[in-house]
């Protein structure tokens, strides 16, 4: 059951930060729904004021998918802590980008990794201006630099020659 719950969560969640935020929202929602007698509050009623519309849509999709898969709310609620504790077991990559991208773009990066590297992996996004001209990432505990620095270093001789030609005429 835990695997099914995690799989549903990962269907539309690509970053570690998003997953933690959404688990927190779900915990709050189920806290109200399950433990307040006669409560008919929806996800939007409980958490809309605390998150972006994009995030609200994502957790609403979770709820729909849990219902479709016959996973009861109480089961999901009880599994939330375990999912959060087991986050370290999900394969992840730390991606360093030069600027802040919007949520859709970040999800697109996450989709690239799932398609090209490993399915169901999570992304930890960090902003670092030194990654200008490309990006850097930590994979298997090793930092790989594919920024402007990498490209200049790769074409070091040609660039030097070109610059010298320009400088010395």
């Amino acid at each position, binding site marked *: 059951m835990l695997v099914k719950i995690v799989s549903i969560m990962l269907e539309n969640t690509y970053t570690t930060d998003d997953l933690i935020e959404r688990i927190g929202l779900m915990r709050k929602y189920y806290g109200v729904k399950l433990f307040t007698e006669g409560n008919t509050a929806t996800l939007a009623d409980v958490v809309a004021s605390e998150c972006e519309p994009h995030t609200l849509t994502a957790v609403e999709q979770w709820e729909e998918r849990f219902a479709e898969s016959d996973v009861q709310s109480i089961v999901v609620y009880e599994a939330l802590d375990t999912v959060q504790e087991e986050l370290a077991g999900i394969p992840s990559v730390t991606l360093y980008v030069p600027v802040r991208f919007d949520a859709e773009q970040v999800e697109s990066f996450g989709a690239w990794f799932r398609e090209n590297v490993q399915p169901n992996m999570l992304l930890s996004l960090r902003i670092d201006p030194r990654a*200008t001209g490309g990006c850097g990432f930590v994979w298997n505990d090793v930092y790989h630099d594919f920024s402007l620095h990498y490209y*200049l270093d790769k074409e070091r001789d040609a660039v030097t020659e070109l610059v010298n030609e320009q400088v010395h005429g």
Partner: protein
Amino acid sequence: MSDSVNSQSLQSVFESTVPFGVVLWIVIALLVVVIALLVAMVLYVRKQRVALMPEMAQQAILNAEERAQAIVADAQAQARDLRNELEKERTRALHEDHQSVERFLDAYRFNLEKTIKELSYGVEKEHMRATTRFVESLQAIEQRVAMNAEEAKHSMDSFTDQSSQLFTRLSHEIANVEKGIQHLALALEEAAVDESDRNAEIVRKEMQKIGQETAKSVTEVAAGLDKALRMNIEKEFAAITSELSEYREARMRAVNERLLLLLEETAQIALQKKLSLQDQADLVYRSLEEAKRRGVFV
């Protein structure tokens, strides 16, 4: 330091809680005494009930009750005072603890900031030292090359002087030999007048032979000297050329490194300012594809 502060606070709290326990025991003891007195009085009154008049007995009971109530009220007031006093002590101790912790934290923060500043200063200093050393080494290479060139020039001058002196001496020696040969020839010609023609012919031939050998020897010496001179000059020239080439390469490497660094910094600024979000995203994808091509994710 944190441990000592905590232990002091615990000690002060402990000291302040011990009297409170004692006081509680005193209060309980007083209550027990009062209850015992009441019981004794009730028993006494019952025993004396036959002898006492009902009014007197009632009065005695009332008096005893009043006294007991007074004692209990007094004990309660004392306990309340003591509790208030203890509460004040506890609050004071907590306040002192709080102040000690604050002082400790301030000192800790101060030391931490100081350490960070020292480390930062150390890093800057080390960077400066490394840069200075690099510049100094370049200057040293430059000086060494200049010195070597000067030395080479000096040794070449000296060698040329020596060679010139040798040539002069050699010419002088040749002239002397020629002169000697001429003298000898004259003397022999004079002697030949009195000698037979055969003897004169033998002497003439010997003379020619000596002359030829001397000329050959002088030519060989001159050729050897010329060869040695040429080799020495070539060797010195090669050494100077190599030194100059090394120096030029080191200098070019340093200039190129600086150039690339400058180019990278400039390009970084330009790319950050000029590129749209979509362009930045495209560059990220391009880099990820490059990483994939290079087999980083395998």
